[in-house]
């Protein structure tokens, strides 16, 4: 119980800390990897909350995802290393206000509402994984499949958007050059 609380707190703090770093540092690489470690901390948070499958999945997915994000940051930022020290933000006051108010409201809800009795025990990881699989391919199959189709569509769409527009002639002499 207390160990769990401790770990939840530690990983929560880690996630928050890295999350802050994301927008504090001026080096794109650092902010991307900070986001990565923040996500990893969230995954560990899941583990601490005995949600093993999701935790491991989160840790795994985010590693790849955020590394890819890192290279995009470096590609698309005019100041990847942050050595120029230019400010990359606007409407600061409003943003801070919005962020703080959102957090405060959510925290207030979390603290003030009565959550009733909390479950003491959950089944072990293997049983969880099995049950989750049954859920995904049984009761909620359509939702899950829809998610799959959606992501496939997104992949195709993204690729289609990203492929450079090349008219036929240039394509031809490209092939000729190859």
């Amino acid at each position: 119980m207390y160990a769990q609380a401790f770990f939840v707190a530690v990983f929560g703090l880690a996630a928050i800390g890295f999350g802050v770093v994301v927008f504090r540092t001026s080096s794109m690489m650092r902010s991307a990897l900070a986001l990565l470690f923040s996500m990893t901390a969230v995954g560990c948070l899941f583990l601490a909350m005995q949600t093993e499958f999701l935790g491991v999945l989160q840790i795994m997915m985010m590693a790849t995802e955020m590394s890819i994000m890192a290279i995009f940051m470096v590609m698309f930022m005019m100041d990847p290393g942050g050595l120029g020290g230019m400010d990359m933000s606007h409407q600061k006051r409003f943003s801070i206000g919005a962020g703080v108010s959102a957090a405060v409201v959510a925290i207030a809800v979390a603290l003030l509402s009565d959550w009733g009795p909390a479950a003491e025990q959950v089944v072990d990881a293997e049983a969880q994984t099995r049950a989750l699989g049954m859920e995904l391919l049984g009761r909620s199959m359509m939702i899950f499949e829809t998610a799959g189709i959606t992501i496939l569509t997104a992949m195709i769409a993204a690729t289609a958007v990203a492929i450079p527009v090349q008219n036929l002639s240039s394509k031809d002499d490209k092939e000729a050059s190859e």
Partner: protein
Amino acid sequence: MTMILILALVTGAILFGIGVYGALSQTNLVMIMMGVELMLAGAMVNLVAFWRFLHPEAYSGQMFVLVVMTVMALEMAVGFGVAIARFRAKGSVEMEEAEDLKG
């Protein structure tokens, strides 16, 4: 146990707040996406906490987390696609300069 639940919820809330700040304050498309990712992460923390401490028997909770992860990946994919296209066209993904969405 409820204490842990609240702990997790507060964590999620703060992550969400940071995400909101980032999404609103950053000028670069990729950074905005980072903010959105953080917001989603906060949501996921809440979902998992609710599943674990309130309804450990309802696995739709975990399924929702999976759906959110899908949304994250999806957002990355489309966002990067747009980013590449825009960078090709305009040479930058600074959203300050992107006014061609003006209706």
